[in-house]
């Protein structure tokens, strides 16, 4: 391949200037003349029959323009794989924070006064807050009518279990018979929030023709469009969703958030309505990461070969399925791990409880499952007297190996990731001083499929407009796509204007999720670029009298046969004579073959263009306080091909920071169905003094499908931190903490009990 001009270069992101000058317009900033303030009234009971909802007093207050409850709207159940959710609680509430009513008023103060004036009376029902209690016979059912709900047929459901996904490979019992040692452990993880700095926000406005426009900070405009169509009983063709700048998403803004409330209120009030979620609402009633209980039973030979693994990961999905059925499926692939294990029986369950509805958070299920798998790898290594790195190297997958569901793996950079991360952290000295230790963890993840379309249009000045239905959530993935387009057209990224995410104006995109944006949109750009070239060469050939096969594109010109013509001239000619130069590029990742016999009730049976990674950390633990000080943190990640190293490092540094939060401090604390810490004082996210410098090593084993070999990079850095940290803490202290977060308090009490 000839030298690349733009791909692989540290090009600044296209939206950087708007973002440093405060001119980028986020959903929280957006307003229209006459916009009303919307507010949601939420349940204060975890499980109760709704006896009375009286809105009369609220509706009569000054400034109030609309009040709605379940009685005012179409009776619709919506959702992803399982349609179990309603806009408002109808006859019963199922969690503290569940919407009961919504209202719109001319000022924030009037909206608050009205919310306080709504009278709700409850009759408490027995509630269940724990997954094991919820699975026990005779447990209170969250959804007594669960059998009547619409769901994708492959889910396996029963009472409070809203999916039970499985991987079965080989014969796990026979495998355990071959094992010299069998290890059994339980790990638990807490509910955590994505922590985006801009809360979910939307503004909805209906025009006289019955068309709805919603400006939102959603990651998935097309999904929101369809969900709104379902809820409002209006055709999608009447619903325009426009994505504003997004103040972070990390999976928390995938599904409809406040758009439906804004749309319903705007319809009733006849005026635009904006809703901006409060921090308290975010921590009480959003789509956080599920807490889990994980059991692992692993059989190994004396020389450290894993011969059998039985595992079960149970997700507390809250009062509705949310992303649970899918996340429980994905989890099984992470729980099997990036290891060659002939005999597997892995289960992922999503369970209803009386808590907020959980969703997706950057590499959904990844950190929880990885925490268990990679903690246990170290426990096994210690018991066998093997080096943890060596145990991994003896079991990891390599090119040509099968994944847990039989997919054949290629371009596996895992060994290189492990070796390089270990070398960088100075693995030879694992316990350099008393109270100091190093930990390592590795893993794999998918590059989510789904289709992407782009329009690429030549502007009158010879610059190019790239129009995509994918949203920019901050990762700079669309800058990556623009780099790919620029490379293909021989122009600079500065020559590209980005038009992003408007369900009426831009082509379909499966959405900014699953580490797929640069990958899929980038590939669509390549296809579109080929078509743009074809159109340009046909026109230039006519204009220059040079045959197409002698033409080349570069420096904003088409040239050949000693002649050249500027793109601006070609654009002008095309605009005058043929409707301009425009191309539609589309891409969908090819299916990844797997062994169908190995999976049951599985929504995500194989990892597409999988990425591989290893994290290594060097830290000290203060024996008195339990405080953890991180000295160094190294990530080696197989990115396939680094389209823009700067922003890949950015993904790694940011993903590690979030992962350290989950590892050490973050937890949405529930007691009896109520969140005890719904504020940023008590929900502790890492600040600049908590996060160490992260050293990124970009390993490149190109994907055959990815643009220029790229693999998905956004989610993986969030997966391994809890496991790497847990392993380092164990190395430093000799104490193994099997529950997240690993707070100072847990370390001190366990250390104390270990010494006794």
């Amino acid at each position: 391949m000839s030298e690349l001009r733009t791909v692989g270069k540290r090009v600044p992101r296209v939206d950087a200037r708007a973002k440093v000058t405060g001119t980028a317009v986020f959903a929280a900033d957006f307003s229209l003349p006459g916009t009303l303030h919307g507010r949601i009234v939420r349940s204060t009971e975890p499980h109760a029959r709704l006896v009375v909802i009286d809105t009369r007093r609220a509706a009569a207050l000054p400034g109030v323009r609309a009040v709605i409850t379940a009685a005012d709207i179409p009776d619709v159940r919506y959702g992803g794989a399982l349609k179990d959710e309603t806009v408002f609680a109808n006859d019963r509430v199922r969690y503290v924070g569940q919407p009961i009513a919504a209202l719109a008023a001319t000022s924030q103060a009037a909206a608050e006064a009205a919310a306080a004036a709504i009278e709700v009376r409850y009759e408490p029902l027995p509630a269940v807050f724990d997954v094991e209690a919820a699975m026990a016979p005779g447990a209170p059912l969250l959804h007594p009518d669960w059998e009547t709900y619409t769901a994708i047929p492959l889910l396996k459901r029963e009472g409070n279990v809203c999916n039970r996904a499985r991987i079965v490979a080989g014969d796990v019992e026979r495998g355990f018979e071959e094992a010299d040692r069998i290890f059994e452990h339980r790990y638990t993880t807490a509910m955590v929030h994505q922590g985006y700095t801009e809360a979910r926000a939307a503004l909805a406005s209906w025009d006289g023709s019955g068309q709805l426009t919603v400006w939102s900070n959603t990651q998935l405009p097309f999904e929101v469009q369809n969900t709104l169509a379902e809820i409002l009983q209006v055709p999608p063709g009447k619903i325009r969703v426009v994505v504003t700048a997004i103040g972070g998403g990390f999976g928390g803004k995938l599904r409809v958030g406040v758009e439906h409330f804004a749309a319903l209120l705007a319809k009733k009030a006849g005026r635009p309505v904006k809703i901006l979620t409060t921090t308290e609402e975010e921590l009480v009633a959003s789509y956080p990461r599920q807490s889990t209980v994980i059991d692992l039973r692993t059989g190994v030979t004396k020389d450290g070969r894993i011969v059998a693994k039985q595992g079960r990961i149970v997700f507390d999905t809250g009062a509705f399925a949310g992303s649970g059925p899918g996340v429980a499926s994905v989890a099984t692939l992470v729980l099997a791990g990036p290891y060659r294990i002939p005999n597997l029986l892995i289960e992922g369950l999503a369970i209803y409880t009386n808590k907020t509805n959980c969703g997706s958070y950057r590499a959904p299920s990844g950190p929880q499952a990885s925490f268990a798998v990679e903690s246990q790898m170290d426990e096994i290594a210690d018991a066998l007297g093997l080096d943890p790195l060596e145990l991994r190297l003896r079991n990891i997958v390599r090119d040509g190996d099968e994944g847990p569901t039989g997919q054949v793996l290629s371009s596996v950079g895992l060994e290189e990731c492990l070796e390089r991360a270990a070398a960088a952290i100075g693995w030879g000295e694992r316990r350099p001083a008393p109270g100091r230790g190093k930990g390592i963890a590795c893993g794999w993840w998918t590059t989510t499929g789904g289709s992407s379309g782009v329009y690429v249009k030549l502007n009158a000045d010879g610059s190019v407009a790239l129009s995509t239905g994918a949203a920019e959530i901050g990762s700079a993935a669309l800058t990556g796509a623009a780099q790919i387009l620029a490379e293909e057209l021989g122009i600079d990224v500065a020559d590209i204007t980005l038009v992003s995410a408007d369900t009426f104006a831009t082509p379909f995109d499966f959405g900014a999720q699953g580490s797929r944006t640069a990958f899929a949109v980038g590939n669509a750009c390549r296809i579109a670029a080929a078509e743009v070239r074809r159109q340009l060469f046909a026109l230039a050939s006519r204009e220059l009298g040079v045959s197409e096969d002698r033409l080349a594109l570069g420096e904003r010109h088409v040239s050949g046969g000693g002649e050249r013509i500027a793109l601006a001239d070609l654009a002008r000619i095309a605009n005058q004579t043929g409707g301009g130069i425009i191309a539609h590029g589309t891409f969908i990742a090819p299916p990844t073959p797997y062994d169908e016999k190995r999976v049951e009730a599985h929504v995500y049976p194989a990892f597409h263009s999988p990425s591989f990674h290893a994290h290594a950390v060097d830290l000290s633990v203060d024996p008195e306080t339990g405080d953890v000080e991180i000295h160094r943190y190294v990530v080696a990640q197989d990115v396939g091909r680094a389209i823009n190293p700067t922003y890949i490092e950015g993904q790694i540094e940011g993903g590690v920071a979030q992962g350290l939060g989950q590892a050490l401090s973050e937890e949405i604390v529930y007691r009896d169905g109520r969140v005890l810490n719904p504020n940023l004082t008590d929900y502790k996210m890492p600040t600049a003094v908590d996060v160490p410098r992260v050293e990124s090593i970009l390993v490149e084993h190109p994907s055959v499908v990815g643009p220029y070999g790229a693999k998905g990079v956004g989610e993986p850095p969030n997966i391994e931190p809890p496991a790497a940290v847990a392993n380092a803490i164990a190395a430093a202290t000799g104490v193994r903490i099997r529950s997240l977060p690993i707070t100072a308090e847990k370390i001190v009490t366990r250390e104390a009990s270990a010494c006794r």
Partner: protein
Amino acid sequence: MKVTVSLNVNGEAWELSIEADRTLLDVLRTELMLTGTKTNCLEAECGVCTVLVDGMAVNSCTVLAVTAQGRQITTIEGLARDGELHPLQQAFIDRGAVQCGYCIPGMILSAKAFLDEHPSPTDGQIREALAGNLCRCTGYQKIVDAVQDAARVLRRERRR
């Protein structure tokens, strides 16, 4: 009850009639339409609402607008001069310190107040100074690097 307040924002004088209990953040965003100052926790816990009042970084969500009367208020919109970016803004771009961007106005203003007092900081001092500004995207590293770069540029400018 409404009161009359005169505010000086980014060198411009404003005369406003507002309720006495409104925060500076609210007035900047909804009266002056300066939405570059961001809103989030409203409890002085995240720093996205940071502005400069007489050169000091404050969380505008917990400052009453009336108390800012007679002081010089700088928001992110007032940082670039005649279309030329402030060295901090340029450094944030060059270092790739911007992701979603929502924390960035507050981050840049906190950094400016800090660098005005500490022209040659260590990384650790920068981290301390920015500890009140949450960023969920970047892991802070490129932000710290950008602040160091800007500090170098500003020192050079001062010497000139």
